[in-house]
């Protein structure tokens, strides 16, 4: 019983916090490398194009959630499209979420291994996924409460690190600043960068707690605008420090940039460690959110299945899959392979549901 008589409701600013955490967890490892790889000219154009496309996707997705207020995206898909909806949406989304969890954990454990804990066994670091499981056990309320505190710690650290990174930039290395010949459109890496802007898909489960699901694109937009400078900095700072050509061959350009930052007045010498520990908080939150999405998706089809058991099951299977990933290159390839599925979920599914709903409404009104 809740003595405050308050139903579980999530406000738009709380959705904003969730989205900020999602951006924090997926922005800094692969994204700079992919953008640097996608074009040899101005980077802000591909960044901005995907941001606008992301906003469009978020708007479409919030329209889908608004079709049946108080229902999650899976239930809506099942209601509007029937069992084909389950196969066309829930199954691909489950795979997308689960694979995202596997990739993001392995990416972080690889980063930790490469930077601050060289001798710690990988299996131990991969076990971080179970902290996400632990958080997911508490439900969406617990996830949001934790996210606010995590954001209060990690976001100032992220901003501080970006600001410190401005110290030794050479703006001449960034040319051309404005010109582009559209070469990125032919690069698969450009389409792969969409993974950063797919964060609104994680509203699939928690969107039902919104007072106005139609407005859910707003917190996404504000979070995207807040994170845009950080994303741009994660791409431009390595390029303006090491040159674009050099940055392109670095595995983790932004982390290499962090390594190069040094100020005589700064007590901390290893800023990479600070970056890693701040991103780990983003990671835990994202894992819990994904776990919540997976559990809700499965329960949309099998309502009687136990939530906690499903969480543990998702965690164990993901951990087993993480252990099978052989190298960092494999992670890069996996994110690329996921692109088609991701684009389908970002745009194909919402458009299909909205179209079906629109047609059904038209037919009903004619009858």
């Amino acid at each position, binding site marked *: *019983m*809740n*003595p*405050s*008589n*308050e139903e*579980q*409701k*999530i*406000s*738009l*600013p*709380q959705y904003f916090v969730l989205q900020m955490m999602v951006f924090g967890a997926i922005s800094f490892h692969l994204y700079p490398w992919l953008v640097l790889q996608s074009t040899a000219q101005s980077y802000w154009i591909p960044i901005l194009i995907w941001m606008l496309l992301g906003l469009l996707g978020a708007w479409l997705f919030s329209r889908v959630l608004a079709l049946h207020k108080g229902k999650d995206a899976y239930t809506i898909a099942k209601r509007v499209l029937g069992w084909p909806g389950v196969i066309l949406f829930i199954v691909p989304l489950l795979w997308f979420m689960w694979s995202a969890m596997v990739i993001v954990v392995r990416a972080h454990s690889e980063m*930790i291994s490469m930077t*601050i*804990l060289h001798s*710690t066994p990988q299996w*131990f670091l991969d076990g*971080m996924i179970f*902290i996400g499981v*632990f*958080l997911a*056990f*508490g439900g*969406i*309320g*617990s*996830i*949001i*409460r*934790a*996210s*606010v*505190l*995590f954001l*209060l*710690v990690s976001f100032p650290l992220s901003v501080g690190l970006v600001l410190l990174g401005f110290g030794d930039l050479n703006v001449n290395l960034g040319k051309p600043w404005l010109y582009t010949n559209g070469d990125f459109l032919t690069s698969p890496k450009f389409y792969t960068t969409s993974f950063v802007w797919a964060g609104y898909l994680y509203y699939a489960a928690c969107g039902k*707690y919104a007072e106005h699901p139609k407005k859910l694109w707003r917190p996404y937009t504000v979070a995207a605008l807040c994170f845009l400078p950080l994303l741009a900095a994660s791409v431009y700072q390595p390029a303006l420090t090491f040159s674009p050509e050099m940055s392109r061959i670095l595995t983790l350009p932004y982390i290499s940039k962090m390594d190069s930052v040094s100020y005589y007045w*700064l*007590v*901390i*010498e*290893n800023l990479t*460690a600070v970056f*890693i*520990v701040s991103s*780990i*908080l983003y990671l*835990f939150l994202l894992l819990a959110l994904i776990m919540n999405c997976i559990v809700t998706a499965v329960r949309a089809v099998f309502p009687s299945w136990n939530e906690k058991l499903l969480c543990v099951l998702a965690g164990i299977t993901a951990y087993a899959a993480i252990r099978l990933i052989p190298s960092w290159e494999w992670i890069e390839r996996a994110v690329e392979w996921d692109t088609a599925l991701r684009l389908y979920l970002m745009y194909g599914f919402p458009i299909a549901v909205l179209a079906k709903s629109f047609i059904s409404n038209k037919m009903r009104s004619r009858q």
Partner: protein
Amino acid sequence: MEPSKGTTMLQQLQYTSSEFLLPRLQEAFRHAADFQAVCIGESDAGKLYLLYLTTLVGSDHFLFHLNRQPKDGVLTTLHSYYGTSYSAGDFSACEKAVCAGKTVLCSAESANGLILDTENPQQRGLQQPQTENVIQGPMYGFIENYQTNIGLIRQRMQTSRLKIWETSVGDLTNTKVGVLYLDGVTDPGLVQYTCGQLNAIQVDGIQDSGELLRFMDPGSSRLFPAAVTTERPDRVTASLLNGKIVVLMDGTPFSIIAPGSFFDFWESPEDQYLTPLIALFLRWLRFIALMINLFLPALYVAITSVNIDLNRLEISLAAAGSREGVPYPVWIESLIMLFLLDCIVEAGIRLPRSISSTVTMVGGVVLGQAIIQANIVSNLLVIIVATTALTNFIVVDYQMGLVQRILKYFVLTGASVIGVLGIFICFAILVICLSRLQSFGVSYLTPIGPGARIRSMSLGLIGGSRKFSLSYWITFGRGSRQ
């Protein structure tokens, strides 16, 4: 006994049942040496008796007359009774009443008795609170007497909207417990929940409010206190005004303020009486002290053993230099010192005040100096541990101070295994644990996130003006709902 009043009173005695009260009570209190059944005279219905426990009843409630009897004898009769009220009760009520220090008046053949309010509870006078000292503010605290404590709150809150719901807890101890709330301010759901929880307690006896709290909120954490306990009437009234409920228990000066939030434990009652900026400074001081207390020993272990390159080279060299000659790994060295520190603190609390200062001197100064000279620990660690001890005493709430003492070992373990990352992982686990906790059905991290208490206004760190309050920004407009 005054004739007219006595007649009215005695008419309430019933003679319908074949089970007489007097022999039943005498049987119930059969081997109780302080139980008395005194014959005080005769009425139409037969002999009248007063039944009471001599250890609990005050002698100033009755006035007896010694009447001369015809044959040089003396007859003792009750002349008058001084008390606030009386009521009729059956065997069960009379038994409870006698145990509570009241007196039962009955005739030899009546089935019930009249309960006279004659209790004379033993209590100390009002004193300064022992655990919550303030420089500015009211200087008196609660005592062990329930009625006195209610009176202290009533004195500070002179309104008919202050409601008290009473019950007794403990099958054998029958301890009186009261739930206080402000009508129209406190959430009725919270009151209902609390009263329901109190009614559901099935236990032989409860000794203190801390024990009662565990029974009232069984789903709460085994580590973090579920609610604030206080012995200050001003803090209680401020909490009532803030929409919380207060649970008072007979026999303890500590009242429970529920629901509890993690941030409530960093607020001192004094904060309300100081200027906003000073209160703000003090709250931040306490919060930073919490951080230092939890993370400083762990950070020392992390940067001297795992993440040696995190710091500037000069600092790392200085730390390594101070450890020269120390044979143990850093985490063992830290563990030894923290354990010794906790022993000294515990000894200082348990011993009489005259000896505790000696223990502190021996433990802190002599042992600290000797342990460095013996090369068991580094002098840098002694500074770290002394700072940790100091910051632990800044905590306002004693229970939360104890929690911190335990948690620093947890964080130290994380740092020993994977350094700074371990510290952050431990921090994340602590936050996750807190985010999952509820106190009386309300989020323990109130005012953050869903499930928070609606009337909650402050995050604890930022007080004073609401517009400058951090909670104003992070509760995301929720605070405007009343």
